[in-house]
């Protein structure tokens, strides 16, 4: 395990200071938080291979979602996002992906599958609050109305001009938005600007 002080968020240059959730954010605004070190493991494999599905479930203690856009597990802990017919993300609150990568790699063994640590390939930020959908509607063409989207759902789309994978965490509503690490600065500043009319507070990461 490497010392924590050696690591850096792609937003460290912004020197973000948590403002705490303001009264306004609570009632009518949005809050932003960065989640730079969560584990994100890309898993490729054959959903129709029962051995593979079984192996993953045993390793993670979670059912493998089979429908694209479905999420299983605990959004604040360990979860699996189904991104494609043969592609998943295993994400976890752990800062260090290695133990999970190792156990997944062992679980799939010689099966036709792939386990890759992509925790640093992606950068997650969380957008929450009563106007979170309105802010997202400025950046993302998907319909995120509760009738068509909700917790335990994910989708791949755009955050303005940056490719994004988004998932809804709860009914606040809170969303976790994943962009490639190099887009972190763009995504954060874009959302801060887009949320300005509702009031944006910054939460502790």
């Amino acid at each position, binding site marked *: 395990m490497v010392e924590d002080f050696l690591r850096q968020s792609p937003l460290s240059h912004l020197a973000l200071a948590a403002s705490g959730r303001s009264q306004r954010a609570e009632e009518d605004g949005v809050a932003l938080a960065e989640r730079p070190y969560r584990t994100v493991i890309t898993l490729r494999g054959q959903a129709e291979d029962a051995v593979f599905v079984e192996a993953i479930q045993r390793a993670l203690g979670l059912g493998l979602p089979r429908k694209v856009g479905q999420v299983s597990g605990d959004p604040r802990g360990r979860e699996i996002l189904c991104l494609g017919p043969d592609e998943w993300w295993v994400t976890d609150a752990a800062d260090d992906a290695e133990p999970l990568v190792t156990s997944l790699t062992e679980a799939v063994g010689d099966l036709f599958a792939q386990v890759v640590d*992509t925790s640093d390939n992606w950068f997650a930020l969380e957008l929450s609050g009563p106007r979170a959908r309105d802010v997202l509607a400025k950046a993302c063409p998907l319909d995120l109305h509760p009738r068509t989207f909700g917790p335990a759902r994910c989708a791949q789309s755009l955050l303005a001009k940056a490719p994004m994978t988004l998932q809804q965490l709860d009914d606040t509503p809170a969303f976790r938005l994943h962009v490639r690490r190099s887009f972190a600065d763009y995504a954060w500043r874009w959302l801060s600007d887009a949320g300005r009319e509702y009031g944006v507070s910054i939460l502790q990461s």
Partner: protein
Amino acid sequence: MPQSFRLPEGGLIDRARSLRFTFDGRSFDGHPGDTLASALLANGVHLVARSFKYHRPRGIFSAGAEEPNALVQLGEDPRTDPNQRATQVELFDGLSAKAQHCWPSLEVDFNQVTSLASRLIPSGFYYKTFMWPSWKYFEGPIRRAAGLGKAPRLPDPDRYDKCFAHCDVLVVGGGPAGLAAALAAGRTGARVILVEQDNRLGGSLLSAPETQIEGAPSADWVREAEAELATLPEVKVLKRTTCFAYYDHNLLGLLEKVTDHYAPYDRPAELPRQRMWRVRAGHVILATGAIERPLVFRDNDRPGIMLASAASSYLNRWAVKPGSRAVVFTNNEGGYRAALDLKSRGVDLAAVIDLQLAAEGPLSRRARDEGIPIKTGYAVTGTSGHLRLKKVFVAPLDGAGKRVFGGGEPIEADLLVSSGGWNPTVHLFCQSKGTLEWDDSLACFRPDASMQRNQAVVGAANGTFGLSSVLVEAHAAALAAADAAGFSTGGEASTAPTSVEERDFLPMREIYLVPSIKPLGQGGKHFVDQQHDVTAADLLLAMREGYRSIEHVKRYTTTGMATDQGKTSNVAAIGIVAEHLGKTVPEVGVTTFRPPYTAVTFGAFAGRDVDDFLDPERTTPMHAWHRAHGAAFEDVGQWKRAWYYPQAGEDMAAAVNREVKAARDSVGILDASTLGKIEIRGPDAGVFLDRIYTNVFSTLKVGRARYGLMLKEDGMVFDDGVTTRLAEDRYLMTTTTGGAANVMSWLEEWLQTEWPDLKVYLTSVTEQWATMTISGPNARALLAELTELDLSTDSFPHMSMAEGEVAGVKARIFRISFTGELSYEINVPSRYGLAVWQALIRVGQKYAITPYGTEAMHVLRAEKGFIIVGQETDGSVTPLDLGMNWIVSKKKDFLGRRSLSRPDMLKADRKQLVGLLTEDGREVLPEGAQLVESNHDIRPPIPMVGHVTSSYWSPNCGQSIALALVKGGRDRMGERLYAALPDRTISCTVTEPLFFDKTGERLHG
């Protein structure tokens, strides 16, 4: 200044507050609720503009989006908007507007001389007159003389917003039809968006206070409807929002004016000025109403002449008398409503001039009962008054409506309102490719076949003019839409609001061109399109010149092509053409409606994607360090890469020379994080790579790396990079920075569409890894201080990979080289990139470690003759052209292989990669320079034998070096060529494309 034309009571204005505004430098007062037009009229101001071509004085013609004349320049640079319709500009305190297109003033405009010369400048005059010697000599002055407002010169300081929206039912128009539809659909629980361009809901009801709905004044119904809509959680009401475009599959564009109506000192800083909505609607209900058609008579454009319905609006909605003494000119029963309104609000009504032979409707009967003088079978034959209407001339009309009798009897009047029937507002319906049919009984075009699924047009927009029928139709359409969207209806909520008042304008007498006492075009003008100054005479001229199609007549005369897109003129133009050709109106047909319905600010289209949001700037984990150390950056795709690091007093050349020397003399360090990286796993990974690359990867040993070239099917080089075998079934591919995404798509495409039998998975890991390359004779010594790994060539040879810790961080280290020096490419998880980079810099101090940028990297690789895809290649270069036959396998098949054996690919005179050394070694060839074989008489045409692809000063060679693609280049070694520059030629010699360390021994340190 008193608002002397403001009525003492009534109107939807807040009399308790006054708003001060200026027009053309003069100060006036108005009230909240006013538009700029209503406030000007309240102050007795009619003259607001000069016309486009003839600079004729023009007034306020309408009360809405259809306004052709009252276009003003709003605000001051940079917050200025040209061509704003005064009829739609909401008044705010401090508003400042100017008349456009007049000099020195609105009252005295010197360019009005064009009016005197109007006989010389008919439609299309510039096609005929200004052809010699060239149109370009005339264009400037003509554009200055014609035209409208001025675009701002300074950058727009305002912020704009854009957003997406989705709904089950989108209702466009907040009049009675739209309100009824939104209520009916909203009550079912469907997601509804109601769009209204005005700042108030109610539409035509706002100007007709006597109307009753549900047994009460319609204003009460509107208020209650708005209140109820506000309680429905899935209903969104957007006021001050114009639906300006309707695209396929129910995608609609809306422009919301968020803060334009605030006084500048009151504008909330956190709000955008305007917001563009892109709405994807399940169902669309168009309730866009109708626009009144003016009558086309001689000199119908003077200030004081307006639409009859506009006069009613000013009286009823804004409590403004648009004149003191009025004449109403109508061809239909609806005109009498204006007459009654005018009389009841205290305007002296001189006469109603009715083209109909008899007026027998309920309104005309009421007018007669109230003692209003009515002349049926009469026409307005002309008007007088320079800056304001003074007299109206009337005369009896013959039975056919083709001519008038007598000289024209004058009537004193300062207001003339005209009504020629109504046109359903079908613009959006037509934009969505719906077709129109001509309704003979209504004498208007109305929607026929829809081209969009889930679309309905209701109310006046559909040619349904009676208020009861409007409400019933809108209600039913909304319930059907909601039902189709899966929202059941029933019970109380499903009855339509009732109204007893029928608002109908029939019957009418269709006469599109009102005759005068003189032949058309003599002694006055019949304006059809007031904004573009197109007259009836112009239309007839176009037909005399042979134009028949209405689309041709439109383009020749420019009728309907102004910013108002002919909202008040198109049908009249079609009618006049039809009358002239002896055809019916539907036989002539309609012109095309295009977005936008009304003009949209460019800023709204851009939204927040301006300045540094114009395009994302992608940065590496070490970006902050590069910035702190003064790096200049180069754009590579969306990436910002450190280009060079100038020290105090250094220019680019000095910095690059220093960096290039350092990497050869001691050690340099490069941020290579942007290189594309793809993890490949599966039992068929080796086979897959063999098919993708020109060379073999299936035989690569685990832990070893190999350089590969990828071709497209045409045999042309597409990408290159080093691929390493991580395990029996795992590889890591690297790609060029710019090609990463394309390569990933290319590989996935082959796997998914052509080779689904191959068991291979790909995952992009470009940004998982921060990559730093240390290069130079001291690279090994430096790395040894930060890792326990055995770096000896025996255990860690060139073109191999090792895993171990560097500066305490788990790393993958590749011993590969793009400089020709001993090089290590150190990859660590991105979160540790900056820490490891800093550790290398810190420890590297004793070796005078030098960070180098992409420019030094280019020089270093050029010294070794290494290509850069996209610089030495341009999509037309094969591996053979590059002299890289050694990398093209003869034993296996791969993408592009068959193309390489096409005869054309084997021709001896293909452009081949060579080196160039200038005769004078201090001279650096410009990249892109064309090469010729002779240095005298090089005037074109002359055979070009090649071009320079890369060229640098090489401090390590002590002279300039260049790479070039030259026809049959490999057979020209030692030959003299000349770079042909605009002012001189540079002489150079063809060499091998390798300039430094030709034996390659430095690779081993």
